């Protein structure tokens, strides 16, 4: 199987999306139920002190927090589960979703860079089952496409 075919499986259509990737303003009153919890959890990362991990990491950067919150607000749609939210070394914020045998990780860095890792299948020893990269342009739109890909396993 080529790596292209692995990643290009059909994705589902949005069913009653709370948000659109084209939205400029997010209406939290219509957001998926988990969105407010996620936004609060991301904001809570700001409370972590310097050296929160014991390895000397700086505090989580407000710019990374803002980017992660904006992303969540813009990509949320009904059926998407609550992501796992994690502090990341260097002051960054991590979001991790899993749906069946598909996983997505996004890392929001203070410099505005958004890195992703997507995983298909449990066999991580196969290199083609993982893909990494950077969302260089319109990360919300690109991220939403990845999330729709992930939900395609349902």
């Amino acid at each position, binding site marked *: 199987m080529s790596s292209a075919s692995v990643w290009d499986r059909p994705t589902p259509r949005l069913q009653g999306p709370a948000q659109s990737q084209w939205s400029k303003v997010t209406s939290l009153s219509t957001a998926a139920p988990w969105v407010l919890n996620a936004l609060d959890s991301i904001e809570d990362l700001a409370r972590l002190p310097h050296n929160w991990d014991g*390895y000397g990491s700086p505090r989580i950067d407000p710019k990374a927090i803002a980017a992660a919150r904006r992303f969540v607000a813009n990509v949320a749609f009904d059926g998407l589960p609550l992501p*796992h939210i*994690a502090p990341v070394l260097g002051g960054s914020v991590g979001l991790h979703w*899993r749906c069946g045998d598909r996983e997505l*990780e996004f890392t929001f860095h203070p410099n505005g860079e958004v890195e992703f*890792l997507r995983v298909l299948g449990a066999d991580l*020893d196969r290199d083609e089952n993982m893909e990494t*990269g950077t969302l260089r342009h319109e990360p919300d739109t690109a991220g939403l496409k990845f999330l729709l890909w992930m939900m395609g396993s349902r």
Partner: protein
Amino acid sequence: MPPRQDDLTIADDAVLWRAVHKLQIYREDDGSERAQKWAFESEDNEVSAWIAAEADLERVRARFPESRIAEFTAAQARECRNIVSRDPVEDDPSHVVICPVPGKSNSQIKKDARRLAQKAHLLP
């Protein structure tokens, strides 16, 4: 500083410990827990760990009160295309660093961090 070398005096079956912050632990649908990839990354590509046979678990835990201890073997770190190198620090000769093999791409480093996170077992 000369490049790190894989220390073959650290046997493949040597158990290593890595402190993982509790917010970097993910609970699977079946209730099992595993460390996130981010817990096995480092800005300088040197991930700290301790040789279990030479370290005191309670001391490591005391040093990282907000963390759990992830356990894996030197072989598992090497299977993920890393070297394991001793890095004794003051009053702690059990400290090692796990580094990517020379020439490994940034993308591969991240994939291998995910692999090692999968292999590591979180102690209760």
